[in-house]
């Protein structure tokens, strides 16, 4: 094993004592360079984008962005060791090919094992990237906010503020409060993550927030458009129109009951 190869490392934890402990354990490994310490998800995204570390020690429960959302924004082309007091995220960590999962509090030898695993991972081939946008969401729960990165800036969009989403090649454009944010995700993957009672796929390229829809108008012989409360118009496909009608009928029945 070559000791000349440096391992650029970032520690992310909102508790200072927890960061100190990792620093202390890492002190006996001169090949590890801790290039940044971050106290929240925003700082982590910024630091990872700028410093391109090889290894990340990542807490899960943090302010602003949780550990999974951080990974969703920065991708997994590095070794990740989760450090958390919660054991219920272990399965999701496994699904996104995390190197290890340290449960607080952990002994020094358990930490050493995690570091060894990280080194092996860095020496070998990285696993294929997982569908992070899907894994970052707890199963059987609908997405409550969408995270988007623009360079080192991070936007957190609560789904209630999302007007609609539009497919653009490999990206989706998220329209919210008069702005559009691009996110690398397929529109189908976004569709499955959103609550079907609040969002509807009205077109191959469009998902609409149903609360924003003010009216549906005929456009041509077979086509319709929906008009949103902010005035924007979105095309509705034939199957999309059927889905929209079905939803409105169902809602009408429920409210008339």
């Amino acid at each position: 094993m070559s000791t000349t190869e440096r391992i650029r490392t970032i520690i992310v934890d909102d508790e200072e004592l927890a960061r100190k402990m990792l620093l202390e354990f890492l002190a006996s490994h001169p090949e590890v360079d801790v290039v940044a310490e971050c106290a929240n998800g925003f700082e982590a995204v910024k630091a990872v984008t700028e410093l391109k570390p090889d290894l990340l020690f990542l807490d899960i429960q943090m302010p602003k962005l949780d550990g999974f959302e951080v990974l969703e924004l920065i991708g997994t082309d590095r070794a990740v060791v989760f450090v958390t007091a919660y054991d219920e995220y272990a399965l999701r960590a496994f699904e996104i090919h995390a190197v290890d999962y340290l449960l607080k509090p952990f002994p020094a030898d358990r930490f050493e094992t995690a570091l060894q695993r990280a080194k092996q991972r860095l020496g070998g081939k990285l696993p294929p990237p997982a569908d992070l946008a899907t894994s970052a969401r707890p199963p059987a729960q609908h997405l409550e906010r969408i995270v988007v990165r623009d360079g080192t800036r991070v936007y957190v969009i609560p789904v209630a503020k999302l007007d609609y989403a539009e497919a653009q090649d490999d990206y989706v454009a998220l329209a919210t409060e008069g702005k559009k944010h691009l996110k690398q995700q397929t529109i189908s993957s976004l569709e499955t993550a959103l609550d079907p009672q609040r969002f509807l796929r009205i077109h191959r390229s469009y998902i609409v927030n149903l609360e924003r829809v003010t009216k549906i108008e005929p456009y041509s012989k077979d086509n319709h458009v929906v008009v949103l409360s902010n005035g924007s118009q979105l095309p509705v496909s034939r199957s999309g129109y059927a889905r929209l009608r079905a939803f409105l009928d169902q809602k009408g029945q429920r409210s008339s009951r």
Partner: protein
Amino acid sequence: MHPILGRLRQLGLYLLAWVPLAGILIYLMVRAGESWTTAVAMTVPLCVVYAFLCLAAWYPCRATPVDQSSFLKLALTHFTAAMLLSTLWIQLARALAAGLTRWAGFTGLDTRVTGYLPLIWVAGVLLYVLSVTLHYVVLAEQAAREAQARALEAQVLARDAELKALRAQVNPHFLFNCLHSISALTSADAAKAREMCILLADFLRTTLRVGRQETISLEEELALIRGYLAIEKVRFGARVKMEEQVEDETMKLQLPPLLLQPLVENAIRHGIAHLPEGGVIGLSTHLNHNTVSIVVENTFDPDAPSSLKTGLGLENVRGRLQKRYGNAADVTVNTDNSLFTVRLRVPMQENGDRA
């Protein structure tokens, strides 16, 4: 099957009670001119058989409980049963007499028995009524015992639920994070690690102690909250700030234990923990016209995903207040921009005067 048939001792006592009854019948027959032998030979088998027949009253008694059946239904049921049993009994008496007539010394009994039949029939009806009365007494006693057992069981269940709720109060992740902080401190700042151990031990001990009490004073609850916050301050550092505005005259207020501490814990878990720069937890109490209002408020990140757990903790508080004060207490929750406020209103009660 009748329950008495399974218990030999009780069955023995029951049959013993029939001895004087048989004696009376024998005496009546001797008075009517029968020999002692004849009277005994007739009465003893008849009484033994009827003793068992009367146990059959258990079935109509169970089918028509006194407190749930109309008088008409009761009268009709037992009248029919009495008729049937007495008629069966006199038929048996006749058959017995016919059998005994063949033996020397009993000649003519089969014709003489006709004179006793009305007596036997009336005795049969009276004995059945007696049996019914006894059965109702036994059934009532049994029901009372069952009700007592059920009440006891309900009490145990309630206590059990209380204990479980209490155990859930101390959030395991709070403990894990604390232990991790202590573990981090041991090499960096051993004195601080020791201090944290003591804070944690004090908090847990107090939680267990007050958890066993029905009520504690607001002063005690506040002391517990301060102990809890001292621990969270080691973890979160300057991110946790506490502002207290408590009136002295509210300090003696008696409250169910661990009512406010979970609210403060929620304020940290769902409020402060999501704010990178931290935030403020406000706690104030105010006495007004014999009602104490307690307000716990905290800043929070409006963009953070709303958690279902907050609601659960509040439901628990609401349920406990409702159970103790009924409609005299209430809980209101207010979310305003980035301030989350829980306001409790409870009647001022000091030690000893429970309304």
